[in-house]
């Protein structure tokens, strides 16, 4: 048995070395963002376009999930926030939850643009696992567990390894990337008719909101990632603020834990007016009218907070 294990270990040594080298291979960022256009309605390609390909500046960036994608009209926000100078606002939301996704978008944003402010979405659902697309887009540095370990770290390494291996293979064989590889190509929030929105009085409490010890653990996980985000922004002289974007059926008052994000920057909590049924496309996402309302309100709040004007 010992001899067998020794021989197997020796035999696998070259492969272990190669695997280590592959994990150290850093694929081009723009290639990674372009690799999964089927996921989240080409948001990856959009991020690649505005951060890497476009020469236009980004002054205000909105980061978050599909709530942000549907809730923030970036051109309107740019116009409303521009007073003395022209400001360009860009919606960099990416479907589904996970604070690490905000970090990797932000890292690329700060390296290529000089935003004055990033507005990050907060919501009731604090995810203590990774964003499903995180390992596919993460840089080598971001693949490291960092200051908080979660259940997906081993799987993230594995998927990160496969992403790098696939990149190497594609360049060896001159293969165009397979656009449907990630397996996360379908999400159906656009499919729900408005009639499916339940009445407010019949709404259920959010299913995934935990309580007690678990809730604190989830919040501290999320908080740890936001600490990294905040440190990164500070290093690039960029301000951070938060907007609370609940789903239609969720209470408008965020749980107390979320307010601790106020340590890093102002937390904007929308008025109850947002709960008008005609503002919603489905239970989770605003329609044009709703996003117009939210964007206008948010820009007023940002202007009133003077966060864009105060010095560092």
């Amino acid at each position, binding site marked *: *048995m010992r*001899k*067998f294990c020794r021989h*197997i270990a020796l*035999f696998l040594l*070259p*492969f272990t070395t190669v695997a280590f080298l592959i994990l150290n291979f850093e694929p081009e960022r723009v290639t990674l963002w372009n690799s999964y256009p089927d996921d989240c309605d080409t948001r990856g390609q959009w991020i690649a376009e505005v951060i890497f390909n476009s020469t236009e500046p980004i002054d205000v960036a909105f980061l978050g999930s599909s709530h942000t994608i549907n809730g923030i009209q970036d051109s309107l926000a740019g116009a409303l926030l521009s007073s003395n100078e022209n400001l360009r606002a860009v919606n960099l939301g990416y479907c589904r939850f996970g604070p690490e996704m905000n970090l990797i978008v932000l890292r690329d944003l700060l390296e290529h643009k000089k935003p004055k402010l990033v507005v990050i979405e907060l919501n009731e659902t604090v995810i203590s696992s990774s964003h499903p697309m995180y390992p596919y887009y993460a840089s080598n540095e971001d693949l490291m567990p960092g200051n908080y370990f979660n259940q997906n770290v*081993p*799987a993230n390494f*594995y998927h990160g390894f*496969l*992403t790098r*291996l*696939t990149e190497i*293979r594609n360049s*060896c*064989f*001159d*293969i*165009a990337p*397979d656009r449907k*590889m*990630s*397996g996360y190509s379908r999400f159906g929030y656009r499919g729900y008719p408005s009639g499916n929105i339940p009445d407010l009085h019949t709404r259920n409490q959010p299913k995934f909101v935990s309580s007690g010890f678990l809730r604190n653990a989830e919040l501290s996980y999320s908080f740890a990632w936001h600490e990294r985000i905040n440190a990164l922004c500070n290093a690039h002289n960029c301000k951070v603020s938060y907007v609370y974007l609940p789903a239609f059926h969720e209470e408008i008052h965020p749980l107390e834990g979320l307010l601790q994000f106020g340590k890093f920057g102002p937390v904007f909590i929308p008025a109850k007016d947002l709960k008008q049924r005609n503002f919603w496309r489905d239970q989770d996402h605003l329609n044009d009218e709703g996003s117009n309302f939210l964007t206008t309100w948010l820009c007023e709040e940002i202007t009133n907070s003077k966060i864009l004007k105060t010095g560092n």
Partner: protein
Amino acid sequence: MLFNSIAFALFLPLVFFIYWKKRNQTLSRQNLIIIISGCIFYGWWDIRFLGLLVLTSGIDFAVAILISGSASERRKRILLLISLFSNLTVLGFFKYFNFFADSFVHLVEHFGWKADYATLNIVLPVGISFYTFQALSYTIDVYKGKTVAVRNAPTYFAYITFFPQLVAGPIGRSVHLIPQFLRVRIFTYDNSITGLRLMLLGYLKKCVVADNVSTIADSAFFNSESLVVSSAIIGALAFSIQIYFDFSGYSDIARGCAKLFGVDLMVNFRRPYFAKSITEFWQRWHISMSQWFRDYVYIPLGGNQESNFKTTRNLLITFLVSGLWHGASWTFVLWGILHGVAIFIERQFILKIKMNVVFSWAVTLFIVINAWVLFRAESFLQLRHYYSNFFTGGGKIMPADLLTGNWSSVLFVSLVTGICLLIFAYEYLEEQDKFNPDNTPKWIRISYYYVAITAILLLGVYQSPPSFIYFQF
């Protein structure tokens, strides 16, 4: 837990290490580890189905003991019926309820009546056809006196839950397997190396050939309405290669994995595409299942010992049931019947004529590939489209349109095709008894291992790899 998943890559070495860690091995410890690991392996899909597995196999365990302790033939028969009823009820409910309900409603509506019905949202427990058949073979063998009832529960449950063969076979026969769980397994270096070599070949077949070829087959069947003749032929060929490399790859991994734990599983494939008749094909393809149907369906029906009419009837019933075993769909039933009819014609007419070997092989392969179209089609409509394009063309999808993604690289295509041909060449030499890997110099073997692993890493499909085809049965 899939054999081609990261979870299994971590699970297998861990179980292997725990299994062989102790110098002084005991039978109960080994069997207990097999049971626990089997439960984890199976429960990884859906822990609820573990209860189902334990329930049905538990009934069989008790029934077998009662059969062996019973002197009355009538009582034995009743006990056997209890076992058959419990296993087939569970199998029938989970696998066939919606199929028969839908078929009944369609039939009724065909006659102009209106039928209200509700099909249930039934999730098919993975591998249910395999472990049910394995458990059934045990009680039937005990009833027939071919094997003795096991009174030690861990031994019996180790036989049922042994993870390498739990979800997609080979369907272990109690006569062959249970004695292996009744004695302490001893670790041997050579056996383990042979096991790893088998697993490597299995992964090479699955990850490099089957998974890559599946994109061509999937694309062809997805576009079945609009294929040109050559595309339809390529799609059918691709699926024939995919299913063989997928399932025989799975069986190689299962056998190799079992060897790592000192257990020998039966050979499930013996180069089926070299068969020169359909009868021979079934002696080489999914052997454990073919033998199961032969021993527990065909022979009890009377086999070929009665009149010509009855032999034909038995043959067709056996293949019909075999088709249905594969899946709850009429296309599978048709696939089974087609093979049954082909064997009937072969026995009645063709085998009596002396034919050229190459011609026989080509005709057999033609029938088998055509039958795979039935097997792969998801509905009769798709089947109709596919066959009409197969013979008449008329679509727009050219072969080049099927070759997308990895298949757009000439180098990639050459390497995958080369590996596929090398495996067939290896099988051909094995068929001719001209090659035995154990007799090759060590440096050649080690070089092969390195090349094979590199090929799997460079050419395999990793991002959302297709599952094993036979897992759905």
